[in-house]
């Protein structure tokens, strides 16, 4: 999966899972402050990502995520690691 396809998939998770508008999904958008997600949403995001992209992101790793771009990068790294 190329990076743009991955970004599109993750954005789709954000739209379907958290009722966000595409215009809100800027890479620099802060998950908590700008997108107004909270700790419960973060747990669900892992579940939705697993269902949509078939990857399992470790909750501990996910705690470092601050922006949407961080999500893209963490998921990309998990996919790369699983391919190695």
């Amino acid at each position, binding site marked *: 999966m190329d990076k743009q396809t991955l970004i599109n998939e993750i954005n789709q998770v954000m739209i379907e899972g*958290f*009722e966000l508008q595409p215009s809100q999904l800027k890479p620099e958008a802060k998950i908590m402050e700008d997108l*107004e997600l*909270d700790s*419960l*949403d973060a*747990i*669900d995001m892992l*579940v939705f990502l*697993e*269902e949509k992209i078939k990857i399992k992101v470790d909750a501990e790793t996910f705690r470092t995520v601050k922006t949407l771009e961080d999500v893209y990068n963490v998921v990309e790294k998990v996919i790369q690691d699983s391919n190695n």
Partner: protein
Amino acid sequence: MTQQKVFVTGTGVISSLGNTVETMFKNLIQGKSGVQTMDDWRIYNGLNSLLMAPAQPFDISAIPRKKRRSMSRMAEMGALATMTALQQAGISGENPWQEIDTDRTLMIMGSTTGSPKTLEDHFKKLFDKGGPESQTSTAFFKIMNHSVPANVAMAVDFKGPLLSTGSACSTSSQAMIQAWELIQAGVYDLAIVGGADEAYYTSAAIFDTVQAASTGYNDQPLESPRPFDRDRDGLVISEGAGIVVLESEKHMQKRGATPLAEFAGGAYLCDGYHMSHPIKDSMIHSMNLALKRANITADSIDYVNAHATSTVLGDRQEAQAIGSVFNHRPPVSSLKGHFGHSLAACGTIEAISSIEMMNAGVVIANRNLKNLDPECESINALAENQEGRYQTILSNNFAFGGMNTSFILKSCQ
């Protein structure tokens, strides 16, 4: 200390016959049924009852996502009915609680269980995954025992005392009676009260398993249930929410709220005898205690709103109990033939319907009553709507676990 009189100042419903009290009552007057055949249920092995009365479609998009995400269908219905009831009671707008002392306001409501659909989803995933992997964060908030009141409180920004009642089909009647006790005693001034339940095939299966569900009319949904009728064969599950605002007379007058009816008293008793076998002596006990606590004599009851779910045994026991308590043969009807059985919601939905009957001067007939069961002849079971002056009503609700509840409403007109 003088005991406070308690009044109903707001009502809200989501039901199989409409999501406003006005629509619901219009459909009751017209003798309509909310029952449908559930063709989707034919896939379930061992399920013999394929009838259900779903709530009318509703829209919850006005509730923000973060409040909605932990709501099951039953909590959604509870929230919408509560909003309607609070609005009618004059507790709405930008700061609905500004003029209310919420420390002296009780929210008391419940459901039979947590969401059966979420329970199934949760445990299916648990078993499929071999453990709790990949569960969503909100599943538990849809299945915990106080899921309905906790979610409703969030939906209406209520910050105050909260109690969850859970006694299956007597959940909301018990909640009303408990609220009446506490307001009457001066513990609270106001209460937001009721019950909600969602219909799912597993709920139908519970009744089917104990041979209490209708199975002989699967392809004739309008013919069942049929309370007190000779050819009844069991209950049909429904769903919905019924919420009332109960308020002390003093508090109501201070706020300038309008009374819809007086909640005059009630009783909730356990028969300590059997989990599912209805027994008339305990029903008689419940009705007599309700009359005593409301300080009302049996002969002043103008109409009895029966629980009668259309089971062979339950309707007979209730008819004989009513016949024993009321020598003057007041008109009797059950609304289960119209709504189906909305489980935890039925007590308040039937209370609201009874208030509408008193205020409209007409009591609703039993739907599908063509031939009265000879063993129910001790009551005046209505086969046609009957106009008249109905000032005082007694309503019954009974439940698994040997629960028997009765309460009394008085007209304010």
